[in-house]
């Protein structure tokens, strides 16, 4: 299977680094409010045919499993598959450079607009709606653990200790994550 995959990669034409950069730059600049893996799929698989459907899915799984912004991890994997280490660097840089200047421009623009009560209220509303995005994200992923006691307990323990009790996040993760992975390991072993 590994050989097949290697052959498929060899058969593909070499994607120019400039094209990789431009596609990632475009997605970065236009990527408002999440749902970015859909965008990446559209460009890399559907439009350009650079990556196979199956390779995209396994890259996505790794990107979501590991720490880091999922999309950044995903472009790192895409870049690696297409052009090796340099491809990863070009993709990540292309993806991040637009948002880097955009957030700073927005922040600088806002502080120039002063600190009136209406602007303050607007920002509170913007933040609240953005928190709503997180809530929807939470609900969608929490639903997967319905009926899975270990998963639900893990979610609750982390949510309560880090969110309500404000315990240090890193310490909590370093304790809870190994236990959770160990229990999942035991489960997978029993399922064969």
């Amino acid at each position, binding site marked *: 299977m*590994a050989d097949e*995959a290697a052959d498929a990669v060899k058969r593909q034409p070499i994607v120019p680094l400039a094209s990789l950069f431009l596609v990632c730059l475009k997605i*970065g600049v236009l*990527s*408002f*409010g999440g749902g970015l893996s859909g965008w990446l799929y559209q460009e890399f698989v559907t439009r350009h045919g650079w990556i196979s459907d199956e390779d995209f899915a*396994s890259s996505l799984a*790794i990107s*979501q*499993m590991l*720490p*880091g*912004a*999922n999309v*950044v*991890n995903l472009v*790192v*994997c895409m870049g690696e598959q297409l052009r090796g280490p340099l491809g*990863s660097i070009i993709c*990540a840089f292309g*993806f*991040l450079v*637009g*948002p880097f200047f955009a*957030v700073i421009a*927005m*922040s600088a623009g806002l502080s120039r607009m002063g600190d009136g009560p209406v602007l303050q*209220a*607007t920002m*509170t*509303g*913007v*933040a*609240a*709606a*953005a*928190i*709503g*995005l*997180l*809530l*929807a*994200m*939470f*609900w969608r*992923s929490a639903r997967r*653990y319905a009926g899975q006691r270990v998963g639900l307990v893990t*979610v*609750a323990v982390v*949510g309560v200790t*880090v969110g309500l009790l*404000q315990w240090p*996040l890193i310490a909590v*993760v370093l304790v*809870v994550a190994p236990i*959770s*992975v*160990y229990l*999942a390991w035991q489960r*997978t072993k029993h399922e064969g």
Partner: protein
Amino acid sequence: MKDEDLVGLLAVFVPFSLMSIGGGASIIAGIQSDVVGVRGWITAREFVELFAISRAAPGPGTMLATLVGWHIAGWTGAAVASLALFLPSSLLCYAVFRLSNAHRERAWHRAMREGLAPVGTGLIIAGVISLLRLSEAVLLSTALAFGAGVLLLLFPRLSPIALILGGGCIAAGLAYPFFG
């Protein structure tokens, strides 16, 4: 003085880079308690504002780190904070991707995925709680946040940017006596 700030940014964001399980949303609670509480670099109100900007702007929500860096030490701070947050996790992803590509359906792979997923989910709700606690108008923020969340679940194709602008308009309307 300036060097201290840059070292501080590295000390805060490099560990969070490697802890952001399930994506950037999971470390908001941690960044908040470090940057606002432990280090006292910015106020709670500024933090909520930076969070709002990072979500209204293009790019991953973790551009929050870029904004914190910019706020503390200008362009250098923004660059250092961005690198500190994005480089370690990217290197790890690169290494794991190269190593695991050949044998992708290994059992450990699945155990990692299934074990880490609920931790990431718990961290997201922790971030929600932390942000709502910081808000100056807790009731209004909570109501708007739940409203937005329910809308998104009912209409998954709703544009996030429209939702964010809508939230801003409603809050501004309520604050402005002529509309309120």
